[in-house]
């Protein structure tokens, strides 16, 4: 991809009238048309989370910062709850991947079951995160009482928003896999260009799977950052030049 880009930059457009006439990318049926925008979007989200995490590191080096892990009396000294939540999200990811592979093999029934499981475990994850919030809140870890708490609530909340955004795509896809909404996608003028239903489902699932794997990776980062000890922050911050 990037190599291609550099090759492109070396073309001499003034020398080649009439030369090759590349096809329109959109006319190619082997390209999932929404994949590129999704990758770009996830790129933007990455910058967003990356910036939060880098300020997290910087902020962790100020004396008023009390990490949520490290000491026995800190809530994430034994982060079992975090591990459980990780497991829930992981299962959701795997289920989506299974659904995708099943669709590729035209096995629509397996796909439907896997999709429902994915939805179920995603919701479970969301609920478990809420419980975690309540737990910490009861222990007296309020949002404003310490920057570490602030970051914990903020990052998990944003991750939750990201997840809810994903549900807006996943739920319609599930409904469509069960046969709802079909007429809407086939307005008369567009019919000839629409890929067949199975391929459309596969395209949508490719996007969902990518989105969920991404959610999972972000979650791991958030997990890592919130459950590390001050010593780890110090090393990382030193590496970043603070």
């Amino acid at each position, binding site marked *: 991809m990037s190599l291609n880009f550099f090759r*492109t*930059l*070396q*073309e*001499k*457009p*003034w*020398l080649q*009238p*009439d030369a090759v*006439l*590349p*096809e*329109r*990318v*959109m006319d190619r049926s082997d*390209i999932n*048309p929404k994949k*590129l*925008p999704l990758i*770009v*979007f996830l*790129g*933007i989200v990455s*910058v*967003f989370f990356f*910036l*939060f995490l880098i*300020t997290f590191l*910087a*902020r962790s080096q*100020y*004396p*008023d*910062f009390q990490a949520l892990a490290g000491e026995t009396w800190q809530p994430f000294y034994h982060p079992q709850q975090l591990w459980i939540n990780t497991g829930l999200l992981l299962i959701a990811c795997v289920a989506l991947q299974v659904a995708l592979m099943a669709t590729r093999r035209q096995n629509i029934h397996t796909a439907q079951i896997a999709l429902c499981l994915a939805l179920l475990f995603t919701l479970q994850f969301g609920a478990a995160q809420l419980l975690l919030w309540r737990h910490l809140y009861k222990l007296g870890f309020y*949002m*404003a009482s*310490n*920057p570490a708490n*602030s970051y914990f609530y*903020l990052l998990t909340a944003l991750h939750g928003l990201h997840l809810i955004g994903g549900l807006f795509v996943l739920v319609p896809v599930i409904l469509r896999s069960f046969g709802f909404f079909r007429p*809407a*996608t086939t*307005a008369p*003028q*567009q019919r000839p*260009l*629409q890929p067949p239903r199975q391929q459309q489902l596969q395209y949508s699932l490719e996007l969902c799977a990518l989105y969920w794997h991404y959610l999972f990776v972000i979650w791991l980062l958030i997990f890592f950052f919130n459950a590390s000890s001050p010593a780890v922050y110090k090393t990382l911050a030193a590496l970043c030049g603070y």
Partner: protein
Amino acid sequence: MPHVAIADQTSELHDPRSFITKYIWSQDHKVIAIQYALTAIGVGLIALVLSAMMRLQLGFPDTFDFITPNAYLQFVTMHGMIMVVYLLTALLLGGFGNYLIPLMIGARDMVFPYLNMLSYWTYLLSVLILLASFFVPGGPTGAGWTLYPPQAILPGTPGVDAGIVLMLVSLAVFIIAFTMGGLNYVTTVLQARTHGMTLMRMPLSLWGIFTATVLGLLAFPALLVSAIMMALDKLIGTSFFMPAIVSLGEQLDYTGGSPILFQHLFWFFGHPEVYIVALPAFGMVSDVLAVHARKNIFGYRMMVWAIVIIGFLSFIVWAHHMYVSGMNPVFGYFFATTTLIIAVPTAIKVYNWVLTLWRGNIHLTVPMLFAIGFIFTFTHGGLTGLFLGNVVVDLPLSDTYFVVAHFHMVMGVSPIMVLFAAIYHWFPLVTGKRLHDGLGKLHFWITFLGTYAIYLPMHYLGFLGVPRRYFALGSTDFIPESAQTLNASITVSAIVVGLAQLIFIFNLIWTLRKAKPCSPNPWGAASLEWQTPNVPPRHGNWGQKLPTVYRWAYDYSVPGITSDFIPQNISEDAVIRDAETSGDVDDHSDKGSHT
């Protein structure tokens, strides 16, 4: 998805019938572009009025009762923010980006027209939220467009209650709008180009718009992150940026946050923002120069590379805005160096513009005048930027009028020059009519000379040490009395320039209502947007069949052919040659080989 890509279709689209679907809830990129442009120009005029009020205060202190010190700070802030974000970014990318991208690449529309429509309405919402802050108790924020904490959210700064919150919310909404638009632009450029339109055959306008969009998509998140954290500091009492602090004799609850952290985030957005505004301007001015000098752009490839390299470098220079905030000297050295390096590709671009003009067949049309004006103002502002990029020079000049003069030349006046060039240039495409020439020239000369009358003396005031963002100078030993005379003259020039914009608006209205339609491609431009079957293009742009592209966009003054340019969609066989040289292909096959 119910909203399937229109750009995808090969058949002609039917024009929407009702007024509402055609002009209000339109998904046509051209209508959305005009909506963006009109909204942006509308708020821009508000910002212009605000600057006039600041100038009145500075030029004639103690004359206008309604301009209080607090109001002055609020004017400064709203003026700066509106100009940079809500006018320039929105007009260049939302307006021109929307209009030109599908037409220049030969698509029927953006890839996601519905998202595009949503982007405009979200942008409008952000503008309304911003303007609402004029009407809330306490008024808009007066924290300066940089919104530095802790002062931005502490008592003593105007608009500390509702104003700052509305500002942060409005910025967040704007960023959402921009992201929706930006995703569209990037995807459309990468996936919806017509047959034969390789990336390197795109006009430079598109390279500028495309790269700027990528920059925006990567830089705006930094502003969003800082807005979110600052809003939390303000509303919930977290201490992301707020240090332990005593305010009005009271120890506040904030613990030990870091205001410098905010500055890093802000300028990580803020510097690329300069190029988000500049790169589309660079691109569009290149095309205007080439068309009106009837010459291919000098060094097309180098121009593309320069755009891409500038885009990349703009992410590693941000701390040159923070020399006075203090930093590790090694970092200061690093950022000064990168800042000077970014001048290299920028200078290359300036050389290439000048070399495009050199021995060209220059037509001094109104767009060309503005484009040449841009070369002046931009070179001028760029050179003072080299001063300020050096730590030792910046320290005494920081926060003086020298800085105000510098950034107005480089990112205030210069992009505005290009915007005018672009409006005069593409107006016939958008409306089928040409703006009045005489009025245009009058508008140009007052604006261009007036700009110098305003900003040249400001450099001098800066050397004297006149500070920026000051309501009044008071009696200061190091500032001579005569500075006040200079200030009065600047104010008079500013008012004249401001009023001169009425000529432009009159010209727009007069042309729309009274002028006769002009020929479809009045400047004889080769790029694709002028080759649509109808001018102005209809919904769907290309009639029955998408165009095929055979060449780059700069085949001007090609020897041996009958007309002096070859449009991009004309194949080599279809070119009409002069009788005596027909068949002599070698004659022009190496055109442009100087690069």
